[in-house]
């Protein structure tokens, strides 16, 4: 079930080979959905689902794909899965689909999908590909959640919509940091996470 190689496929992306911090994939959506914690979590779950299934599908048909049109094939599979997710959300959970409207479409252009399909699913069997999809999806979700946590806490004074900064802080002159809500601060928050992460994993540091 979980040989050493499979374990690596599942757990490496959580930290050492994290898609956002190390492979630099999926930045666009990291910026767009991390203002509040809730959409970040739903987005994370959707990406895990789409990534795992598209990895499996591509891995199943990997030997039949002509290499010259492989990108189109991959994108069609991904886009079809995303449209299915979108259609099901509209039909069965309209509230969530309203919150995520634009972000669901963004999953297609999430570089993590193409990156993993190219780098892993095209050359591996379905089961490891599935684990790789779950692992990378989780690694991505962790970063989303951490960034969204800090942005929501500092930017709106809430966590998952609940006020956590007590009223007396506001009474004594504390104000929410409006800058945290703007997209540039997501980049700077990610940079802080990169800093922390690489300070602990010295082998990842770049020499430039």
């Amino acid at each position, binding site marked *: 079930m979980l040989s050493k190689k499979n374990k690596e496929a599942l757990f490496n992306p959580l930290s050492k080979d994290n898609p956002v911090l190390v492979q630099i994939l999926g930045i666009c959506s990291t910026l767009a959905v991390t*203002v*509040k914690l809730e959409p970040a979590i739903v987005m994370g779950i959707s990406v895990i689902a789409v990534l795992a299934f598209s990895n499996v599908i591509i891995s199943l048909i990997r030997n*039949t*794909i*002509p*290499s*010259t*049109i492989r990108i*189109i*094939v991959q994108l*069609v*599979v991904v886009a*079809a899965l995303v*449209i*299915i997710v979108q*259609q*099901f959300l*509209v*039909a*069965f959970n*309209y509230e969530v689909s*309203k919150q995520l*409207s*634009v972000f669901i479409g963004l999953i297609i252009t999430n570089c993590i999908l193409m990156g993993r399909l190219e780098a892993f699913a095209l050359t591996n069997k379905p089961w490891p590909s599935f684990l790789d999809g779950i692992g990378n999806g989780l690694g991505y979700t962790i970063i989303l959640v951490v960034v969204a946590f800090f942005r929501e806490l500092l*930017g*709106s004074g809430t966590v998952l919509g609940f006020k956590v900064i007590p009223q007396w802080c506001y009474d004594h002159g504390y104000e929410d940091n*409006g800058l945290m*809500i*703007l997209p540039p601060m997501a980049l700077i928050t990610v940079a802080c996470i990169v800093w922390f992460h690489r300070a602990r994993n010295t082998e990842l540091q770049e020499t430039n």
Partner: protein
Amino acid sequence: MNKNSNTYQILYAAVMVVLVGAMLAFIYMALKPRQEQNIANDKRNQILSAIHQATANESEIPATYQKFVVKDLCVDAKGAVVDSAAGCAFNVDMKKNMKLPEAERKLPVLVCDVEGQTKYVIPVYGAGLWGPIWGYVAVNDDGNTIFGAYFSHESETPGLGARIADADFQDQFKDKVLYKEGAFKNVTVVKKGQTPNDGSDYVDAISGATITSRGVGAMMQQCMAAYDPFFKSIQSRTE
């Protein structure tokens, strides 16, 4: 068979397109009734929000809507009723409607009955900072005072422009008047602490979201001004 031959590639692409297309079309057809129902219910609930009757329970929406919204009207630019068939106002697609030249636009009105009082709900549609914004404004039967307003948006900045969808912004509109000394003045959205120079009623903009807030004001002006003859006819009726 050679995977890089042209025939193989073309066949492969064709089969894939047909399969994926068929599957998507099937899913779309299968889910469409549910989706349309959801969308219609959501629109009904937005209208109910404008008259403070929104319900959180989805299954109750059609019944609540039936109870409060008594009639659909479409009026023309002179204030005359041109259509009063059931659903004629509800089914107006505001996005398409606003693109028509002003003379051809339909002016939908939803007539509501809230505890014996008649309210007129007017749909509004305009542009925010990033994308479209829309809403519903309920006017009292004096054709002047606002009873309630509901706004929503597609993609405004969360925490800033997106706050036009929050109750504390919308509640400001209650009891504001559209007319000053018999002339249509709209409700202006101005920066907190300022007052508009044309003497109209005003509400505070959301700080940090000037463009979205201004968009709300412009949207009200653009959509509601056309109803001027209609409001006037209501006003003369009640006087």
